[in-house]
């Protein structure tokens, strides 16, 4: 377990088992599956959720499906069907909780790992796989899905999200959280990204322009091999204070707390209260990507300690203990997840390679005569091989 990053006294409620001296963590469901009614964050806000049995079961299903699809993608990479995969293993609660807190007209700006958020926006999970398979660059219309394309340059999307949020303000779509027109933005990024200039510039911009944006940082403790101590001397949620907006740390392995904190932050943004920072304290159970070997920089005991805080096990324990769901339900969810994984596999394997000439497409909305000329030369060159196998 990471050493204590802060020396401040914790708040009474909702610390959920963190050791003394650790910054307070908003938690509404312990690793053992016990519910906590209310939790107060470091920002002084009190959080709770009021889910029906159906909603608890639905969010469990989301978690299981998201993990299963992610595992399928990892398997596909190992089999050479994807060039690379960035697994979200361990971060399902942070993504499903925050993803389900979004309203349909809110806009999300992911990194390259938010497959769980994508799923919760009711987007076909095959959509990003073109990027990882190498058939495209992860192409979709951000406005159609209210979900930006994956951004690989670390932290760059936080500025895009901030500009988009400024656009919401210019459009006058801020101020009514209840219904209808107000919109908010959520920007996802990791602990490593908080060192990037662009992220800090996004904090500056969003604060001085009071942008309706939630900065959702999944602190999964590592940026490839660099541990969190290499990115910061202070708990990340405290960064917000330096920029003049609220920050809160939530147990990123607790889907209920992640949901509650994100929902409240989005509501505040929609009301015109400006930006906030959520630090979802979680752990990257897998590798940075399938090209990474975490055994080179972390020990098994650390991973095991986080295994005991698994986000899905605690929900299952809760559902079982409260008799909200039984073995039949769990089996049905597993089967559902399995079906979806098989479907994803089939469709990935069926993805066509792009036609070579298409590499010239979509460089400019208005095209370019020189590029058109070059495209013609390429086409003639390709045709000169006609008749020979290639």
């Amino acid at each position, binding site marked *: 377990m990471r050493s204590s990053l802060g020396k401040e006294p914790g708040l009474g409620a909702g610390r959920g088992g963190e050791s003394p001296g650790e910054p307070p963590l908003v938690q509404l469901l312990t690793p053992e599956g016990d519910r906590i009614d209310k939790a107060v964050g470091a920002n002084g806000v009190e959080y709770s959720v009021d889910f029906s049995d159906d909603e608890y079961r639905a969010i469990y299903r989301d978690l299981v499906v998201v993990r299963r699809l992610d595992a399928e993608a990892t398997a596909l990479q190992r089999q050479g069907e994807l060039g690379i995969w960035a697994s979200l293993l361990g971060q399902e609660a942070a993504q499903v909780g925050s993803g389900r807190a979004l309203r349909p007209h809110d806009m999300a700006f992911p990194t390259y790992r938010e497959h769980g958020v994508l799923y919760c926006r009711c987007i076909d999970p095959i959509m990003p796989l073109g990027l990882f398979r190498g058939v*495209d*660059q*992860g*192409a*979709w*219309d*951000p*406005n*159609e899905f209210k979900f*930006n*394309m994956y*951004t690989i*340059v670390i932290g*760059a999307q*936080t*500025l*895009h*999200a*901030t*500009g*988009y*949020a*400024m*656009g*919401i303000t*210019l*459009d006058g779509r801020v101020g009514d959280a209840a219904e209808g027109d107000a919109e908010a933005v959520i920007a996802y990024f990791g602990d490593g990204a908080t060192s990037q*200039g*662009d992220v800090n*510039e*996004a904090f*500056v*911009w969003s604060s*001085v322009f009071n942008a309706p944006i939630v900065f959702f940082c999944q602190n999964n403790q590592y940026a490839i091999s660099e541990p969190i101590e290499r990115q910061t001397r202070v708990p990340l949620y405290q960064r917000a204070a330096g920029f003049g907006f609220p920050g809160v740390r939530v147990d990123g392995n607790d889907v209920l707390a992640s949901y509650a904190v994100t929902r409240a932050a989005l509501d505040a943004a929609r009301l015109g209260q400006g930006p906030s920072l959520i630090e979802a304290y979680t752990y990257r159970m897998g590798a940075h990507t399938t090209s990474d070997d975490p055994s080179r920089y972390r020990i098994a005991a650390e991973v095991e300690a986080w295994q005991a805080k698994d986000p899905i096990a605690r929900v299952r324990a809760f559902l079982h203990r409260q008799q909200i769901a039984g073995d039949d339900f769990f089996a049905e969810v597993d089967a559902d997840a399995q079906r979806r994984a098989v479907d994803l596999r089939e469709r990935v394997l069926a993805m066509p390679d792009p036609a070579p000439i298409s590499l010239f*497409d*979509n*460089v*400019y*909305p*208005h095209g*370019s*005569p*020189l*590029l058109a000329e070059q495209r013609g030369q390429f086409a003639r060159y390709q045709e000169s091989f006609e008749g020979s196998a290639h």
Partner: protein
Amino acid sequence: METMTIGKALNTGLRRALEADRKVVIMGEDVGKLGGVFRITDGLQKDFGDDRVIDTPLAESGIVGTAVGLAIRGYRPVCEIQFDGFVYPAYDQIVSQVAKLHYRSRGKLRLPIVIRIPFGGGIGAVEHHSESPEAYFAHTAGLKVVACATPADAYLMIQQAITSDDPVIFFEPKRRYWEKGDVDLGVDPATAFPLHAARVARPGRDATVLAYGPMVRTALDAAAAAAEDGRELEVIDLRSLSPLDLAPVYESVRRTGRCVVVHEAPSNVGLGAEIAARVTEECFYSLEAPVLRVTGYDTPYPAARVEEEYLPDLDRVLDAVDRSFGW
């Protein structure tokens, strides 16, 4: 027809753009209340409000990155980078995002962003205020790059760049901001001379001289001097650096047989090298001499007291023409 400076022509063109489309927003350091350090945006915030002309925090990457987000939201941002040498913090957002998002999205996303950059030297400034970074952008697929050289073109091209759905890096010759010329304010940008077209600034038959931005005036001065000695130089203002419009250049070189390219930017891997390669390939049998380049030297831009030795001037252009004739 009105006589005005390049600065005023840009100001007027920006005003027209703000009037024509309420999605156009201007953003940058000091562009609002101050009207820009060169006064290019003078009076615009007063008339259009601070929702249309936005004073930003001091961070170029933030200016361009938030412009990307505004463009995704449906706005048409016009960013000002205060000086050429300060564009580099924004370079990643420009090259990794602005240039690539249309391609990345397979055409689903358009980023109609204009990034205005005053460029070039000859203003007696300290370091970083006299750069010519156009090659870094022309080399990047997905960006269109233009440079205006006259008040008429400044007025026209800024409007065309803003209405274009391509992302456009718009270079403005800062040493020429106060030089005057005639502007037809009634010109309709939609039907006028195209944005990505080169223009013959002065016809001639003896040699073709290519220039853009601040060097167009230098090339014209050289042509006037050469004419006194009976040599007629054809000066072509390239206007569009990416894509280059070389058809008029080829037509000219096929007649003259000689070509000289002039730019402030350093020689090594500058636009002159690209132009020389293409002109040589297309006009090989028409050339009497290789394509010659008159450029800044391959050093960082020097201190102000020696910048006149660094910058191409009338004499260096004429010298290159002489060398071509001596081949």
